[in-house]
């Protein structure tokens, strides 16, 4: 004959077992639902990126095709005055602006480059004759801007796939230092994009500076000196002076960057 208390305790053990297994069933059900949702969202994102890539590739092909035709005509042009090609160049420039409006709006440094190119074109267009060198220079600048815009657009699409974490230090040069550790941003972000995101910046555009045209005049209204940037080299264990403009330096995951105001 089994004692009553034994039955009570066996019942308690079974209750505990049943509770744990039911709980785990619910847990795995929820986890599976969560993973399925994540998978679904990732698939949707990949589909969107594939669609965007197709649109971007098509855009690039059309514009580079138009550019190629104009370049061919330029190279085989027999006269001395290239002003007859200016209207076609204008159309090309207009198409560029129409096709990359969102990218131009999102990245002010590229918009400034576009406006500089447009201004150069208008200045040249007002002249009675256009030399081979002048028109060639316009074509070169157009191609540089086109490739930069196409690259930037693809970087934005790829950036949607993942998030990177970077750390940024702002050294004001007056014993004041601010750290923005493990700041999350999309892949493909430049140092300029990140700095604009976390601080108020004023900048100037230098057309002749390559690669990258941006020079920061002030960060958070601090303009007593000039701003230079560094990145942390893990292997050397030292800060390395920024070799390009901040708008051309793409951030790496877990990278450490520093702005220093030199008095």
């Amino acid at each position, binding site marked *: 004959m089994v004692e009553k*208390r034994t039955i009570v*305790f066996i019942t*308690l*053990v079974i*209750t*505990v077992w049943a*509770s*744990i297994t*039911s*709980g*785990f069933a*619910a*847990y795995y*059900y*929820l986890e599976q639902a969560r993973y399925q949702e994540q998978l679904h969202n990732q698939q949707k994102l990949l589909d969107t990126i594939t669609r965007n890539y197709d649109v971007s590739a098509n855009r690039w092909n059309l514009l580079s095709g138009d550019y190629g035709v104009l370049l061919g005509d330029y190279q085989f042009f027999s006269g001395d005055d290239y002003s007859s090609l200016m209207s076609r160049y204008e159309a090309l420039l207009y198409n560029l602006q129409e096709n990359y409006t969102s990218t131009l709006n999102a990245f002010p440094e590229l918009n400034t480059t576009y406006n500089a190119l447009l201004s150069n074109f208008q200045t040249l267009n007002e002249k009675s004759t256009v030399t081979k060198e002048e028109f060639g220079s316009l074509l070169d600048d157009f191609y540089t801007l086109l490739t930069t815009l196409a690259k930037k657009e693809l970087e934005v699409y790829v950036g949607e796939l993942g998030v990177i974490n970077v750390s940024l230090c702002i050294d004001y040069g007056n014993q004041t230092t601010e750290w923005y550790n493990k700041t999350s941003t999309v892949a493909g972000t430049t140092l300029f994009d990140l700095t604009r995101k976390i601080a108020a910046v004023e900048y100037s555009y230098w057309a002749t500076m390559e690669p990258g045209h941006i020079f920061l005049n002030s960060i958070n209204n601090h303009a007593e000196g000039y701003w230079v940037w560094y990145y942390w080299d893990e292997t050397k264990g030292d800060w390395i002076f920024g070799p390009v403009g901040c708008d051309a330096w793409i951030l790496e995951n877990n990278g450490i960057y520093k702005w220093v105001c030199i008095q």
Partner: protein
Amino acid sequence: MLNPLKNSRAVAFFGVLTGLCLAVQLAPRPPNVEFTSLFSFTVGFLFGSFVGAFFGSFVMFVNGFFSPWGFAGLNMPFQMLGMSVVGVAGGLYRKYTQKPSPSETAVLGAALTVFYDLVTNLGMALFYMIIGTNPTLAVVTALGYGTPFSLIHIASNIAVFGLAFFPLIKAVSQLLVVEKIG
């Protein structure tokens, strides 16, 4: 049995136990490994269900403000209810058992932990409902995602109730305060 809540030494004893519970709660430890259940059960066992329930709910009330996991908030009443049931169980166990054994206390510890986690997870479910989650989903989510923590809680309380209950009873029984009022 004297009413221990009217005895200053007993009240001081509860204060010390409450402080001890909080010290353990604040000490670095894995999540859900705690001794409050054991102390509440022990107090219930020694002084009766009512005192056990009072002690359990009082400790959880104080813990609600000092827990390293932050202010308990809406979950505090559920924690107090759950722990008071542990105290009541301690009193009932003494009343209805003739030969307490470590294996029994271990099973009781596991069952009471399941009940406590169920009650506190329902508190979490209520919070989810308040922020707009569907009630069924809120309960399933709270219970489901509470399970890994609950498993740690149950395993640790099986060990704590099975191994520490009888040495604790022995130690506390030697205290003068217990001899006078017990």
